[in-house]
């Protein structure tokens, strides 16, 4: 299969290489302002964003490069530049409750495309209520479109634009996604996340977001508080806010669309060849990455178009020094339930689909769960923390006999010690990824066939780890 993909990949690389200089510049600018793990928010002073619908490439951990559709942040008219800035999943857009979020959609794809915003009220498109589009009585799109690009003298020329806007009235986690040929376009990668942060509740209590981020200094970012909803019980530690977007890819579908795209660039005619009845997902991703890339940092250099890490990186709960949990926003962007299972502790489900879990009178209905079944189009907001209930240490040892490592199979993230912050003997030749005696707990989809990928490669799908560092101050890098 790789052989058949090769010509297409070479064509794609030719596009990518055109603007290599620009890519380097963009990365150099992006890196210093982003945390290594946790959410990367795209923000805007006036709530306006430009998104360009474009092709791009995503790299799977088995080495395959997958032709994608989706979004590049900003307005781009050159398809090679747009492909450089393409990202999978789409940019995470963060606004405050009450802000007007507006997006102008530019189109470099060979099909009309549009944006829909499930969970938002009174969405405007082109200065009118966004409505389904019909042509001679036939539904053509769930929302007004930005028309397809065209081929003029062998070059891709942008289609029309469309501007969508709405008032972000309720805090929470939401999606935006294509509303045109959605069965195909969403699957090709045309979706992203919107985070709406709370401001003031009905009684004037202030829950607005004030996170003072210190680049490269994890300790300095601790001790702050933010809220997922305009409720005191939705407090979390903003240094540990994560988005985990779950999606899937059928490589045959994407290969067919790649072939169609290359034909379009040559002839100007775009004809989709793939029969969606034959759709079978083979890759299962978190934040557009497969394991172990899910654990890599934000903006990992070898994943230029998959910028979002899926490693949840925390410190142990401590009532005095680390009282606030991490917040993880799960987003279901695939076609089925993903029963996600973070090891180590239960997750406290505090919100679903952009609403806090409360009853009609506002009483808290949040619930602890060990499986988070994230369905298509759903968002689940959970808080997560961890502590050692038994305070094991070398002076309070675990109550069993531990064999020497020669009598055990030792995992790559094992520190050699049962105790947080300690390390010990590791067998020769092991990976020894542990840096400072930190703990790791896996977090994965429990429909375990989706923890694999195409061709029977185990542990290469929807899996990541939660990293628990020893309490501060520590000597972790």
């Amino acid at each position, binding site marked *: 299969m790789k052989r058949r993909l090769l010509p297409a990949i070479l064509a794609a690389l030719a596009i990518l290489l055109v603007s290599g200089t620009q890519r380097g510049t963009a990365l150099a600018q992006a890196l210093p302002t982003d945390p290594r793990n946790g959410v990367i928010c795209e923000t805007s002073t006036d709530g306006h964003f430009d998104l360009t619908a474009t092709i791009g490439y995503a790299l799977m951990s088995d080495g395959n490069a997958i032709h994608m559709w989706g979004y590049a942040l900003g307005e781009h008219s050159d398809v090679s530049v747009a492909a450089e800035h393409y990202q999978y999943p789409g940019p995470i857009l963060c606004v405050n409750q009450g802000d007007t979020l507006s997006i102008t959609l530019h189109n470099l794809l060979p099909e009309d495309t549009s944006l829909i915003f499930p969970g938002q009220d009174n969405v405007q498109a082109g200065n009118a209520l966004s409505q389904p589009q019909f042509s001679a009585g036939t539904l053509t799109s769930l929302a007004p479109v930005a028309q397809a690009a065209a081929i003029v003298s062998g070059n891709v020329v942008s289609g029309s634009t469309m501007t969508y806007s709405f008032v972000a009235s309720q805090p929470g986690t939401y999606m935006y996604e294509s509303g045109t040929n959605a069965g195909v376009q969403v699957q090709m990668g045309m979706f992203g996340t919107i985070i709406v942060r709370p401001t003031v509740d009905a009684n004037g209590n202030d829950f607005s977001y004030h996170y003072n981020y210190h680049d490269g200094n994890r300790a300095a970012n601790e001790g702050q508080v933010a809220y997922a909803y305009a409720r005191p019980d939705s407090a979390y530690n903003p240094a540990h806010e994560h988005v985990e977007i779950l999606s899937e890819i059928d490589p045959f579908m994407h290969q067919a669309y790649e072939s169609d795209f290359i034909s379009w660039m040559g002839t100007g005619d775009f004809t989709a060849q793939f029969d969606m009845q034959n759709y079978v997902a083979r890759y299962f991703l978190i934040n557009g990455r497969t394991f172990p890339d899910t654990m890599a940092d934000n903006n990992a250099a070898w994943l230029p178009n998959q910028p979002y890490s899926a490693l949840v990186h925390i410190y142990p709960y401590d009532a005095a020094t680390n009282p606030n949990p991490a917040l993880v926003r799960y987003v279901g962007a695939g076609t089925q339930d993903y029963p996600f299972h973070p090891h180590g502790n239960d997750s406290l489900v505090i919100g679903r689909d952009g609403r806090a879990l409360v009853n009609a009178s506002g009483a808290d*209905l949040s619930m602890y769960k*060990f499986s988070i079944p994230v369905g298509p189009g759903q968002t689940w907001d959970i808080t997560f923390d961890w502590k050692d209930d038994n305070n094991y240490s070398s002076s309070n040892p675990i109550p069993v006999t531990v064999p020497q490592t020669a*009598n*055990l199979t030792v995992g790559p993230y094992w520190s050699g010690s049962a105790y947080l912050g300690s390390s*010990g003997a590791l067998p020769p030749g092991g990976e*020894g990824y542990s840096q400072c005696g930190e703990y790791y707990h896996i977090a994965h989809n429990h429909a375990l066939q989706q923890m694999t990928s195409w061709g029977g490669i185990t542990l290469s799908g929807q899996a990541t780890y939660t990293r628990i560092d020893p309490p501060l101050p520590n000597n972790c890098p």
Partner: protein
Amino acid sequence: MSKRLSRRGFLKLGLGAAAGAAGAQLFLSSRAGSLSPVAQAAQGTIIPKYYLAGTDGWASLPGVGNTHFYPDTWAPTGKTSYMFGFADVSAYKTVNPPVSADVLGFKQKAQSCAPMMYFDEVDPNDPNKQPYVVRLTNLGLAMRPDLVDSHTVHWHGFRNVIPMFDGEPGSSMAVPIGRVFDYAYYPYECGTYMYHCHFEDTEHVHMGMVGPVVVRPKQNGTSKTYGGRTFTKFAYNDGDGSTGYDREYVMFLSEVWNESHWDDAHIQLPDWTDYKADFYLINGRVYPDTIKENGEAVGAPTNGVPGDLGDQPYSALAKCKPGERVLLRFVNLGFTKASMTLAGIRMRVVGMDAVQLKGKSNVDGSYETNTIQIGPGESVDAIFTAPAHSGGSGYDSYMLYNRNIPGISNNGNAGLGGQMTEVRVYPANSNAISATQVGPNDLAYLA
């Protein structure tokens, strides 16, 4: 890679030498039955509550048809499908050394589903609290001497666990063939859980290294009256007796995809993204074997040959009397969502994922339903009140089955099978069932 020794590597070497010296000393001291030398010895003698042996074996999944993958032509008479699993060797938990000849005799005797394990909730503030220990050994795979897979026990849902006792091999360690490891648990949260091997998890879970775990609440043994009835057994520390019950049954759901099971026996590998279950199991059996008693030897036939249930000891039959409250503990370790319908009796869902449905603020979130949707890795606790008996001396039958219709077929063939069993309501004066349950699932060893 640099050959120079980093500071970290140097420190590790130093620690390794220190640990080696410590191990030499420990070699002479109490070793609690572990292979020596050990990295750290426990104080005192360890007596596990359960002792599990990871190995392979065969199951009888009765069905029609001779496809390439089913029944496996290498299967012993009466069996159809190659399995991995845990054998219950708890009878040898005090024997030293732990991997005795008796224990080795369980190679290729994997049990389907894995042994049901019950624990009592531990009070974290009890100064005399003792850990529960589950001992694991690995007997290897009789059919696959070329595979040297390790095994682990992952207690799925255990809160605030340290990696060493989580059984996820990437973050800690696994047990190679012939070795022993003890997992220590202080269960502070009652409810219905599950456990499984996490080594090569997609394969080992699907191949059958899966079973239920229950933690009984501290409230058990106290008397609480609810709805005019007094209970001493409860699903949760409810405070009001609302989760009280008379009898309890685990409904442990798992699946078998013939191709992957055949592949493992025949030294092949499947593409897991092709996954599609052919058999849907409750407590390690498919209907109609689910309604056979615990320990029954002979199951439904395959191609005319009676099934051998020797390694599938658990019934899924729920028996009760009118007016009794019955707790069903649903657990799903298959890869697809199940919709378990109890036709004719409504169930009240009182817990999910080992948490009582009452939120943090004591708002009652329990609800009535006749169909319980349960995804992979989830658990649901549901209580029903047995309806009045219709008369006569026999029992009334109510079917409990997976409404995902492929889930009640054996191997896709016509006729009923799979995840289906019965709730039987006996007359109040019947002697056909004991007045009080001998133990969960009518198993005395779990009492």
